[in-house]
């Protein structure tokens, strides 16, 4: 008996798993079914010119939600791969770092809409007669709104791996592959995860723009929440907007609970600071997964596979081998590389000047710069107003630990919620009361990004040392003096961190927020955002390019001259 038993696969004999496994099973099966269905729909045959069925019937919303979420997760996965590749390349090769980091810096400040019209055609040509091409274009558009900050965070993480850990990795002769999995990726993980969450929210913000694609005078609306909203706006259906908001809300809650929460809780072990003041995240799903037997078994098996790969890709020689002998370093290749970069930059600049001169004219450039100034003014005023509102509230919440932990979850959620769904309401109000769009459209820019400000202020206030708090009470600091000498300096560093994110987001949001459509009513404010949006609507490529370039200059200048300095000042002097 027992001899025969051995030949059975383990699964048949011991159909084990505990009750936690069994309870999880339906969920996993449902997930697989949904993924298969969604995937099948994505790769349908499709001819250019065909209109895809789309209706405002709310019963379709779950399906649209599935499609949109799938696109966003595929884009997120692509962004993750991209980030790791980027970080590996830039930290291993100085030549790559010199080129790729500035490029990414520029890409980061380029608004996503700019990419879309250029890339759609290429993607459609890639998969002729199939919807996959259009899907890819949409996914790529979402990717461009998610990848850059993640890549930067990974790069920062890889670069700041502590020297002693690097030395330990060398002494114990970890191969590059093992080093990546055991040292670099885990170290970069917390920052990367946080940026993934931010990217996901950022993705929602542009979901309308990425799903409703116009190419060669055709409007393709891919089934999804974004298209649903676009259609609702076209047909001025406020109820449908409300449905869409509801669906999105559910979507955000679902992936927060089923994906990010467990991931955050799991990634808690990657926190490097040994005395983290942050309270650990907890997740019911992770607790559940950790109780399962079969699922744990699968995870362990995967881990084992990874470990085995370390053996396969190990470094087979040690420091006494001739192969470890360092090559004589000459500065020549590096200098040639520098020269090549310089030449390319000069050529690009020359092309740009030539292009502007020939295609748009210098007066247009001046005009766009003036528009940029309007938008800059808006950003500054809005950050100031947001600070005025959120600092007192944030400090009050942050000083109360119990309130703070509860508030943080709520605010993270609010940050993930796409503010552009509120735009139609704004249009209605502006049109109804005949308000000045130059002023009243502005708040929309900061609607989605103000949460970062609040979030950081709370975090800053909750790390004020207790003794300092007692000292302030003891000295009976009150009123203006209390704010000037105690509270404001105490939260300044975290305020700056939040403001950098908020301002960056606001610049990007200006494209959507300064040019808002509701049916055939369009309300626009003067600014560089509305300029880019308008030119995109017309399809004037040279002017789109010009608008994007100028915005780039503004954003990078703003970062360099304002935020980076404030940040350095905060780092140097105002910390505990």
């Amino acid at each position, binding site marked *: 008996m027992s001899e025969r038993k051995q030949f059975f696969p383990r699964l048949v004999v011991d159909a084990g798993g505990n009750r936690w496994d069994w309870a999880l099973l339906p969920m996993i099966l449902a997930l697989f079914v949904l993924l298969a269905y969604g995937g099948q729909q994505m790769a349908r045959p499709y001819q250019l010119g065909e209109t895809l069925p789309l209706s405002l019937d709310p019963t379709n919303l779950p399906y649209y939600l599935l499609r949109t979420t799938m696109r966003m997760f595929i884009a997120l996965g692509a962004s993750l791969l991209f980030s790791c590749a980027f970080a590996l390349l830039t930290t291993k090769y100085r030549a790559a770092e010199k080129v790729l980091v500035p490029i990414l810096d520029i890409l980061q400040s380029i608004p996503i809409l700019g990419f879309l019209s250029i890339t759609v055609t290429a993607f459609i040509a890639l998969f002729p007669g199939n919807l996959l091409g259009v899907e890819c274009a949409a996914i790529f558009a979402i990717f461009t709104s998610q990848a850059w900050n993640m890549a930067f965070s990974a790069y920062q993480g890889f670069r700041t791996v502590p020297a*002693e850990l690097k030395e330990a990795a*060398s002494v114990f002769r*970890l191969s590059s592959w093992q080093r990546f999995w055991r040292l670099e990726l885990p170290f970069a993980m917390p920052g990367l995860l946080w940026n993934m969450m931010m990217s996901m929210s950022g993705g929602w913000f542009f979901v309308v723009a990425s799903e409703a694609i116009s190419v060669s005078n055709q409007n393709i609306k891919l089934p999804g929440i974004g298209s649903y909203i676009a259609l609702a706006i076209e047909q001025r259906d406020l109820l449908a907007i409300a449905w869409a908001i509801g669906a999105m809300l559910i979507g955000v809650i679902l992936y927060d609970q089923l994906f990010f929460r467990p991931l955050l809780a799991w990634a808690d072990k990657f926190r490097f600071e040994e005395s983290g003041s942050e309270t650990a995240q907890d997740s019911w799903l992770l607790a559940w997964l950790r109780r399962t037997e079969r699922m744990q078994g699968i995870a362990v098996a995967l881990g084992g596979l990874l470990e085995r790969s370390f053996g396969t890709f190990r470094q087979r020689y040690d420091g006494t081998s001739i192969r470890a002998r360092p090559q004589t370093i000459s500065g020549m290749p590096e200098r040639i590389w520098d020269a090549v970069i310089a030449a390319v930059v000069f050529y690009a600049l020359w092309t740009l000047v030539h292009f502007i001169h020939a295609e748009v004219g210098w007066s247009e450039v001046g005009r766009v710069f003036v528009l940029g100034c309007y938008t800059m003014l808006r950003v500054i005023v809005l950050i100031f107003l947001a600070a005025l509102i959120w600092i007192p509230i944030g400090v009050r919440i942050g000083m109360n630990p119990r309130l703070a932990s509860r508030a943080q979850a709520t605010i993270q959620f609010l940050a993930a919620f796409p503010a552009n769904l509120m735009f139609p309401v704004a249009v209605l109000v502006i049109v109804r009361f005949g308000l000045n769009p130059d002023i009243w459209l502005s708040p929309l820019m900061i609607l989605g990004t103000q949460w970062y400000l609040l979030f950081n202020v709370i975090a800053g206030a909750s790390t004020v040392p207790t003794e300092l708090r007692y000292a302030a009470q003891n000295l009976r600091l009150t009123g203006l003096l209390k704010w000037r000498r105690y509270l404001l300096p105490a939260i300044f560093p975290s305020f700056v961190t939040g403001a950098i994110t908020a301002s960056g987001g606001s610049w990007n949001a200006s494209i959507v927020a300064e040019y808002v459509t509701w049916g055939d009513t369009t309300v626009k404010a003067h600014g560089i955002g509305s300029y880019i949006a308008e030119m995109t609507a017309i399809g004037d490529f040279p002017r789109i390019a010009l608008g994007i370039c100028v915005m780039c200059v503004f954003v990078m200048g703003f970062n360099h001259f304002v935020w980076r300095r404030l940040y350095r000042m905060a780092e140097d002097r105002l910390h505990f």
Partner: protein
Amino acid sequence: MTTPILELKSVGKSFRSADGSARSVLENVDFTLNEGEIVALLGQSGSGKSTMLRIMAGLLSADSGEVLYHGLPVYGPADGISMVFQSFALFPWLTVQKNVELGLEAKGMASVERARRAEAAIDMIGLSGFDGALPRELSGGMRQRVGIARALVMEPEVLLMDEAFSALDVLTGERLREDILELWQTRKIPTKAILVVSHNIEEAVMMADRVLIFASDPGRVRNELPVTLSRPREVESSAVRGLIDNVYGMMTTGTVRPARVTAKEVKLQLGDRLPEADIARLEGILELLADEPFRGRADLPKLAEETELTDQELLSVSSALTLLGFAVLDHGDIIITPLGEQYVHTGNAERQAMFGRQLLENVPLVAYIRHGLLQDPSGDLHEDLFLRLLRFTLNEADAKSALRVAIEWGRYGELFEYNFNTGVINMPESDTTGVA
């Protein structure tokens, strides 16, 4: 009889400083690590002893000379050489067991065998039951035990220890040291030689068969002291105390300024590093020295015990005191000068004036700053000017530290003021006449 395992032959190493000029850290270092011995490297911070250790570990490559492991050149980390780090360098996301297995995993060992060896190493170092713990759950001493287990599981022929006990409290450090010595003594580990980098003199004397004393700028071996006492050694025994005294003597002669070595004393140069000693500590030691049990003359090890300062700290303070002319060093003893006596017995205001006068006379950097301020019509100068000057001779961290010490001392001596926010050094308000 002695078989060399690891040899350094006239090894030199220099680093590029911020302005691109090369700064020599090691020069012409010859060293042999033989089978069956424990060698301790002692020296003040910045003397290049850590650099030397890293060259032997294959983490840095030497600019000149060669490193030989069993007679073969070493270009990178070699099998058979393992290292224990000052701040443990554990991977915080891996459990104790996974941390210990790290090097075996890199070798491609099968997981069963790996687990068996890790288990054995963990048991040997006294961590049984903690296999599944994350490093952050452990105390400092336990963490370093993991670090040691991780190194020992590789069954290294040579074990390098980079100030392995200095991040631990005294008691924990001693326990761990004894445990390692026991493993060594009873041959429970296959390790054939241990090199310990330390700035704790007692630790070096207790562990080593040979103590090498490093001199700084550029780093080189200045003295070598064989320790022939049998193990286990007693800290309180007169032989050990004598040796510690001896090492103190060796370390203090020819530090910043040798005391009474030659009639013409070696003056401090403008671009030299300054001992990191704050004023409260300087005055504290000086007062202690003038007072009852010592009456003006103290044995450095005794003083270290009395003040509970580390060797590093005490050596900094004593070299600062000799530098300022308040004390002199003589064969491991510190002796107060008449000026020092006078200093102790005056009030605060006069003290500061005296301090200022001594600074101008003895510390070229302070005198130079003061000189610059007097000549400058606006009476203020930016610290970067001096930092740039110091970078010619010192590395970034040392330059910053020297300027910080100069500024702190100068402020106390009321020679100049300094604004932290702007980084500007300026003349004191009350001192517009500019009497130097």
